[in-house]
C-alpha cells in the first residue's frame, strides 16, 4: 500500500468570494517509507499540500488517501507527525513536557508512564540533545528547539512525517548536521517523510525523489527520481558530479517556474 495517493487533487482555500485554488491536478503516489522532498517558489502551495495531508485543510476537489484511508482517520490514529517552520514549542512546558504533549493530550490525566519518560530520553539521545529535558524552550538555541520539535513529532511513532522548512532558520553547519541526523532517524524508523525546503542542496541530499511545484497556475512541474544517483540506503556525496549536475538541472527547472 502506498503511503499517500492523490488523484486529480485540487487544493486551496475556501473563501466568501469563492474558492481560491492553490494547486490543481495533483496526481501523486508516494511509497511507504519513501523520503520525498518538495521544492518550489514562495507561495506555490507547499505548506498547503502538507496541510491537506495532515487533515488541517479539506481538499477542494479530487481524492487523497493516506495509508489507504481518509486523512482524518490517519490523523485521529496519531499516525501523522508535523514539524512546523517555527518550532512551535509551548513556552510554558519543559523540553520533556513538550515532547510528552502527545501522551497527555491522548490519555488525559492518566499521566505519563515510565516507558514514556524512557522514550523521551532515547529520542533526545538519538537527536543529540541528551540532558536538556528540564530546560524551557527559551533556554535553547534555534537548532536545539527544532530538534525538540522533531522529537515531539516522532514521539508517537508516526508512519508519516511532514516537515515544513524545518531547518530554514538555521546556519549551514547546523543544518547539515541535522540533515544527517534526520536521515539516520529515517533509516532507523522507516517513516515516510515529506520534506519542504527552499534549498536545492538539501532537497537533493535528503530526498529519494524531488518534487518541484510551480506557481500560476500551481501544479506539479517535475518529479525527479534520484535513486540512480544515490546508494540504496539513500546516501550521496555532495560533491559527486552526478549530484552537482542534478542540482543545476533542478535550479533551471525552478528558475523557469519562479
Amino acid at each position, binding site marked *: 500500500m502506498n503511503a499517500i495517493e492523490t488523484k486529480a487533487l485540487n487544493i486551496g482555500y475556501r473563501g466568501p468570494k469563492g474558492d481560491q485554488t492553490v494547486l490543481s491536478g495533483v496526481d501523486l503516489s508516494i511509497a511507504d517509507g519513501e523520503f520525498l522532498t518538495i521544492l518550489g517558489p514562495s507561495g506555490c502551495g507547499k505548506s498547503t499540500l502538507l496541510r491537506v495531508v495532515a487533515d*488541517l485543510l479539506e481538499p477542494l476537489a479530487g481524492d487523497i488517501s493516506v495509508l489507504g484511508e481518509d486523512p482524518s482517520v490517519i490523523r485521529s490514529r496519531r499516525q501523522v507527525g508535523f514539524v512546523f517552520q517555527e518550532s512551535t514549542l509551548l513556552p*510554558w512546558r519543559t523540553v520533556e513536557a513538550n515532547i510528552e504533549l502527545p501522551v497527555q*493530550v491522548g490519555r488525559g490525566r492518566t499521566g505519563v508512564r515510565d516507558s514514556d519518560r524512557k522514550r523521551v530520553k532515547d529520542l533526545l539521545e538519538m537527536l543529540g540533545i541528551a540532558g536538556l529535558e528540564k530546560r*524551557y524552550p527559551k533556554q535553547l538555541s534555534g537548532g536545539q528547539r527544532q530538534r525538540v520539535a522533531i522529537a515531539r513529532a516522532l514521539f508517537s511513532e508516526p508512519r508519516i512525517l511532514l516537515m515544513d522548512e524545518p531547518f530554514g532558520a538555521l546556519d549551514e553547519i547546523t543544518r547539515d548536521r541535522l540533515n544527517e541526523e534526520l536521515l539516520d532517524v529515517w533509516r532507523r524508523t522507516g517513516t515516510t517523510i515529506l520534506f519542504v525546503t527552499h534549498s536545492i542542496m538539501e532537497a537533493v541530499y535528503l530526498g529519494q525523489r524531488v518534487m518541484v511545484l510551480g506557481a500560476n497556475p500551481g501544479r506539479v512541474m517535475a518529479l525527479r527520481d534520484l535513486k540512480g544517483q544515490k546508494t540504496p540506503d539513500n546516501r550521496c556525496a555532495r560533491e559527486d558530479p552526478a549530484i552537482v549536475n542534478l542540482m543545476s538541472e533542478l535550479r533551471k527547472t525552478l528558475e523557469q517556474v519562479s
Partner: protein
Amino acid sequence: MNSLLRSVIAPVFGPLSIILAWQYLVPIAGIPPYILPTPTGIAGALANQWPLFADNVWTTVIEAIAGFLIGNLAAVLMAVVFVYSAPIRAAYFPVVLFFNTIPVLALAPIIILIFGLGLTPKIIVAAVICFFPTLVNMIRGLDSASSNERELLHILSATPWDNFWRLRLPRSLPMLFSSLRIATATAVIGAIVGEWIGSDKGLGALIIQATYNYQSDRLYGAIVLSSGLSIALFLIVVAVEKLVLRHE
C-alpha cells in the same frame, strides 16, 4: 560598578533625596504642618496612633483583597464564556461596555443604596473596578494562541478540554497577570471610594474624617498606608506571577 549604581544606588537615592528635601525644605519654605506635615511628623503620627490606624487598615485590606479576588475571578469566568460563545459575547459585551462607562463615583452610591453600609458594598465597588480591564485582557489572552499552536493540537486530535487547559489557558496567563498587577492598585482605590461614600471604618473613612477635622498628620498617615497596601498587593501578585510564569 555601573550596574550597582543603576540597580541599587540610583533607585534608593531618588526617593531618599525627595524625602530629605520634603523633611528639611518644607519647613524652611514656611509651609505649615497642618497643610503638609514632614515625613518624621507622619511617621510619628503613625506610631503614636497605631491602634487607630491598624483597626482601619484591616477593614480596607479585607475589602480590597476580597474585591480583587471576586472581581478578577468573575472577569476570568466571563471571558471564558465570551470566548466560547460568540452569541453571548455579541449580546452582552455591549452591556458590559456600557456599565464600564459609568464612573465609579456615580456607581458607588447606588451600590451602597442596594447593599447597605457593611463590608459588602465596598467589596463590590472594588470588584467592579477590577472587572473590566481583566475581562478585556483575558479575552485577548484566551484568543492569543498562534495558528501553528492550534494546528499542533488539532494534529494530536485534542479534545476541547485539552485545547482549553493545555493551550488557551496557559497562553492567556501573561496577559492575565499584567492586568492583575494593575488591579492591585484599582482594588484599593475601589475600597477607599466605597468607604468615602458610606462608612465609619477603613482608610477611606479615616481620610474623610481627618480632612474635615484638619488632622493632617492622620490624613497623610492614611494616605501612606493605602499606598503601602497597594504596593504590598502588587508585590504579592508579582511573586505569584514569577512562580507561575517561571519559564518567561
